[in-house]
């Protein structure tokens, strides 16, 4: 059986220790050198970066997240022992792990590290599909001759380079499609390397809960359970048409995935579908003035992003989370695409005013979707609001001033609320 030493990258034929360096970190699998679709996922990414930059934190439980009211962005594996999980509200995390050191996220640093990892992946293949800062799919098909080594070796080398050059560890999932590669990378975290081959695909999947399928959340899970489907083995008993009839397009996807069939290619850029920004408050609030200030700042951030990417949206969305975590979402389709903060703010404000719920809220968010190229944005004026043209000219002028003298050179009074 082909085997690979993850420490010195020696390849050999079976054995529990590396013949060259005697390391026990040996990976062996019958299809090891035949598989080429991989998923790389960094281990506790933000927390690892923090520990790397501040060695005092090395042996402590570290939680990266925002303030008393925020949620856990990432927590290190020490914190995970106490039951802390990402996306958990901060107060709950602190109850579980009172000794944890809470660090505010430093997105700029994470983006930098992410870029460095991306560059390392670019050395291996042009077929990279990043899912977020810390994970990506890679398709290494046909690269064996170029690199003089099969994909598995190159992937082990990537992780080694990340550890040595960046001080960040990651886990690899290697399989024959994206669905299985993503599942594999999660099997043996941290510092893992898991392989799901063609031969074992069906046997492996049959044992799993439906939850393992990407995109099956709580709602789908409940719906599936009502149909008596808890495991993938249950799914396999369903006829393809019946699944389609009961669960729509999702049903067809489930039928395929349950059989380990996933033909989606690793795509470099799946395109931005929406741009949104949200903020969680330190204290729940229903103060209309305060919320108005947030609406403006969020609209401005969304607009900045849209302008930078030369995109415009045809739909404006307002998101509100009530104190009891109930989510309210309101959207409005515009008659022409926009990228202007003024327009986004006005639409969001109208949605806010029309919402029956007046708070208190713990979160507010603004977004645009149904995107199109930015050169089509705001091309038409409004007969009934001739000031809109002036406001849009003022916004363009503000942008020009900011580009030259900095973001704080000129701001609206509204932004100070």
């Amino acid at each position, binding site marked *: 059986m082909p085997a690979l030493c993850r420490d010195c990258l020696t390849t050999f034929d079976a054995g529990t220790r590396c013949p060259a360096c005697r390391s026990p970190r040996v990976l062996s699998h019958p299809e090891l050198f035949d598989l080429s679709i991989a998923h790389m996922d960094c281990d506790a990414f933000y927390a690892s970066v923090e520990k790397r930059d501040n060695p005092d934190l090395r042996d402590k439980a570290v939680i990266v997240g925002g303030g008393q009211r925020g949620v856990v962005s990432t927590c290190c594996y020490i914190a995970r022992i106490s039951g802390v999980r990402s996306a958990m509200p901060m107060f709950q995390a602190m109850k579980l792990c009172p000794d944890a050191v809470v660090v505010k996220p430093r997105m700029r640093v994470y983006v930098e590290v992410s870029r460095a990892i991306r560059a390392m992946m670019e050395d291996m293949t042009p077929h990279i599909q990043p899912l977020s800062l810390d994970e990506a799919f890679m398709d290494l098909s046909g690269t064996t001759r170029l690199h003089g080594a099969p994909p598995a070796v190159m992937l082990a080398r990537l992780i080694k380079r990340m550890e040595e050059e960046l001080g960040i560890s990651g886990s690899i999932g290697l399989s024959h499609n994206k669905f299985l590669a993503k599942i594999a990378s999660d099997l043996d975290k941290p510092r893992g390397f898991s392989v799901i081959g063609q031969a074992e695909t069906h046997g492996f999947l049959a044992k799993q809960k439906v939850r393992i399928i990407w995109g099956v959340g709580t709602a789908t899970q409940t719906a599936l359970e009502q149909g008596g489907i808890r495991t993938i083995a249950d799914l396999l008993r369903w006829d393809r048409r019946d699944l389609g009839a009961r669960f729509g397009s999702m049903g067809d996807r489930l039928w395929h995935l349950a059989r380990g069939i996933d033909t989606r290619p690793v795509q470099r850029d799946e395109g931005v579908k929406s741009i949104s920004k949200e903020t969680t408050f330190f204290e729940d609030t229903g103060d209309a003035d305060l919320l108005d200030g947030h609406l403006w700042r969020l609209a401005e951030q969304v607009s900045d992003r849209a302008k930078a990417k030369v995109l415009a949206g045809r739909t404006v969305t307002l998101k509100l989370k009530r104190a009891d975590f109930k989510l309210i979402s309101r959207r*409005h389709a515009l*008659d*022409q*695409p926009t990228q202007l903060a003024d327009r986004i703010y006005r639409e969001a404000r*109208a949605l806010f005013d*029309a919402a029956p719920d007046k708070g208190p809220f713990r979160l507010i968010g603004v977004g645009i979707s149904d995107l*199109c190229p930015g050169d*089509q944005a*705001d*091309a*038409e*004026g*409004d*007969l*009934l*609001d*001739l000031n809109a*043209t002036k406001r849009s000219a003022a916004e363009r002028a503000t942008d020009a001033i900011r580009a030259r003298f900095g973001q704080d050179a000129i701001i609206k009074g509204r932004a100070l609320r």
Partner: protein
Amino acid sequence: MKISIERGALLKALGQAQSVVERRATIPILSNVLIDAEGDQVSFRTTDLDIEVVDRAPAMVERPGATTVSAVMLHEIVRKLPDGALVTLAEDSASGRLTIAAGRSTFSLATLPKEDFPVMASSEYASNFSAKAPVLRRLFDKAKFAISTEETRYYLNGVYMHVSTADGGQVLRCVATDGHRLARIDADLPEGATGMPGVIVPRKTVGELRKLLDDDDAIIAVSVSETKIRFATPAITLTSKVIDGTFPDYTRVIPTGNTKRLEVDATEFAKAVDRVATVSSERSRAVKLALDEDRLVLSVNAPDSGAAEEELAVAYGDEPLEIGFNAKYLLEIASQVDRENAVFLFNSSGDPTLMREGNDTSAVYVVMPMRV
């Protein structure tokens, strides 16, 4: 209740009534038509709570009475009956069904009690006048394309009918706008309409009204109050709530200082716009108009799909101008012109443009340009 009525008369009466019925009514009775037979006529009444239509037809009434059945189903049945058939509608109060019989066909429909049928509260009308059908037809037909569908500006979801002055005299005026284009149509003020309150007639009412206006000789009795408007012919009465809102001051939107004058054959212009707009795939289709000494070049440039250009001989004597518009809006206003040439008055590429038919100021259109 038991009546006999000729199929054609019944179909006509039901046709108007059933179109008011909301197809997705949540209250069952709103799907029904109230059939009321008395004397020598039968009336059909439907409502969606905002609009009520009553349609009358002569009939042989054997047994007076009233009941309600599904308007759409009854209409469908009558539509499928052979022409010239004599239709008998008979209510059997014991079984709660209405029997429809014609020739060898018999149908039986479930009924709902007539007492449950909502009847619109009658109101005092401040103004009553009569207008010829073609006058009202022109007022609404030429304005309705500009009605907004934007729900946030609900007060634009209709035609603003009011009394105004033009050329020193009083006129009956209809205005509609969606913020991108505006239509302002005037007609001589009918006798008795002087004190009419301005009302916003909802889009659906405008559509329903249209069916009353087909007959050129018809005289329509119009009654207006602050909250309702009623249009009546001897056979049909259409009553509608009006939109509760303030129509914006449209007068400042209509440019008065536009001096650059383009005169063009409206049909040729519309066809050319339609042709060049074909290559643009995006939803907001911008057409560029480049004007120079008696020459108009229409062009579309869509980077991802292609480009198109067409030249038209026109009458234009002012300084060269380049201006962009949404192709759909241009087509719509150009198609309002039916007798003379279309006259466009421009100011600059960023200002609203005015369009009218020849020198006729009784119908003017304003359209906002687009950046190209």
